[in-house]
C-alpha cells in the first residue's frame, strides 16, 4: 500500500467515524444557491410589476359612477377623477387643448384609459411646452388649462390623481407609463378619437 493510499484509507475511516458531523460545506453551498435564486426571483418580480405602486403622493378613489348623462354633473374633486359623464368623450389622441374642457366630456376620456394633464392658467410657458411635448408623444393623453385647481399641475386618470409643482418632476413620466391605458381603465380598447374634438 502506497503512502497516499494509506492516507486516503485513514481519511475514509475518519469519515465513517464522523459521519454525523454537520455538513457545513453543503449547507453553505445551498444557502448561497438559495440566496442567488431569491435575489433573481425578487428582481424579476420587481421588474414585472407596474410602476403605479411607486408614485409618491398618488391620490386614489374607488366607487366612482360611470353612467352616461347629458346633464351637468357635480364632481367631488377639481379636476374630476371619474364619475358619471357625457356620452361624448373628449378626443384624447395626444391632444393639447389651449382652452378649458367640459368636465363631463373629459371624464369619459378617463374611462377610456386616457391620462389628462391640467394646469393652472398662467403656468410658465416653458412648463407648458415641456408638458405639451410629453402629450404629443403619448396617444391616450390630453392636456388643458383648468381654472381654480389647487396645484400648478395635476395629472388625472380614472380614480388616480397626482398634484405636481413642476413639469420636470420625474413622476410625470412615471404616471404616464403607469396609467395610459393602465389597469384602472374601465373600457379597455375604447377609442380616443372620433368624438368631441373642440374644447
Amino acid at each position, binding site marked *: 500500500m502506497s503512502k497516499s493510499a494509506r492516507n486516503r484509507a485513514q481519511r475514509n475511516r475518519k469519515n465513517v467515524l464522523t459521519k454525523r458531523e454537520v455538513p457545513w460545506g453543503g449547507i453553505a*453551498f445551498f444557502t448561497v444557491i438559495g440566496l442567488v435564486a431569491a435575489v433573481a426571483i425578487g428582481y424579476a418580480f420587481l421588474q414585472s410589476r407596474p410602476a403605479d405602486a411607486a408614485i409618491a403622493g398618488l391620490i386614489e378613489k374607488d366607487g366612482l359612477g360611470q353612467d352616461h348623462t347629458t346633464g351637468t354633473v357635480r364632481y367631488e374633486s377639481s379636476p374630476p377623477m371619474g364619475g358619471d359623464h357625457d356620452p361624448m368623450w373628449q378626443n384624447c389622441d395626444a391632444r393639447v387643448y389651449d382652452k378649458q374642457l367640459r368636465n363631463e366630456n373629459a371624464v369619459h376620456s378617463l374611462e377610456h384609459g386616457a391620462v389628462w394633464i391640467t394646469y393652472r392658467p398662467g403656468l410658465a410657458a416653458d412648463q407648458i411646452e415641456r408638458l405639451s411635448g410629453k402629450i404629443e408623444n403619448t396617444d391616450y393623453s390630453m392636456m388643458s388649462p383648468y381654472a381654480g385647481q389647487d396645484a400648478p399641475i395635476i395629472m388625472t386618470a380614472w380614480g388616480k390623481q397626482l398634484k405636481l409643482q413642476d413639469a420636470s418632476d420625474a413622476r410625470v413620466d412615471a404616471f404616464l407609463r403607469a396609467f395610459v391605458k393602465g389597469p384602472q381603465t374601465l373600457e379597455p380598447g375604447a377609442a380616443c378619437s372620433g368624438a368631441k374634438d373642440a374644447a
Partner: protein
Amino acid sequence: MTDGSTGSRGRRPTAALAALVLAVAGLLAAWQGLRPDRPGGGGPEAGFARDMSVHHAQAVRMSFLVRDGSEDERVRLLAYDVINTQSAQIGMMTAWLDEWGAPKADPAGRMRWMAGHGGHGGGRAGSGGGAAAMPGMATRDQLARLEKASGRDAEVRYLQLMIAHHRGGVAMAEAVLARTDHPRVRRLARTMVDGQRSEITLMTDMLRERGIRA
C-alpha cells in the same frame, strides 16, 4: 476506482445534487437574461406594439371617415376590412404589453425602437406634429379634410392617405422583423407586411379607376 467509490459514497449524491442545482440555476439565469417570451418595456417588441397600435388606430379612424363619406361599395368594404383587422390587431398588441408587464406609453418618444429610420428619430415633435413623426401617418389637417369630404373626393383622399399609411406600416413591420426573434411578434408583423402590401396593390387599382396614379 473501487477505492474511490467506497471513499466518496457520502459525497457523491451531494455532488450530483449540487451539479443539478447549478444546472437549474444556470438555466434560470439564462432564461431570465434572454427572456424569450417577455421582452422588456424598452425593447423593439414593446416599442413596436405601442407605436403600431397608434398607427393602426389612425387607419381605423380614416376608414370610419370614408365609410361615412362614400357610397362606393368596394371602398366601403375595404374600409370595413381595415377597421376589423386593425382593431383586432390593436387588441393583440395590447395583450402582449399586458402580458409582458410593459407600459402602454413611452413619454420619452415614439419610434425610438426604430431609431435611424428616415430621420424620424422620435423625440420631441413640433406642435401637432407628434403623430406625423411615425411613417405614413396623416396629419390632423389631412384627417379634417377627409372628414369633410364626400363621394369621389372622399374616396380619392382615403385611398391616397391609406396607401401612404400602409407603406409606413409595412416599413415598421419590416423594421421589427429585422430586430426580433419573438415568434408571435414575427408572425403578426409578417401578416401585416403581406396583407398591407396586397391592399396597397388593391388601392392603387382603385385610384387608377378614378383616373389617378398613386
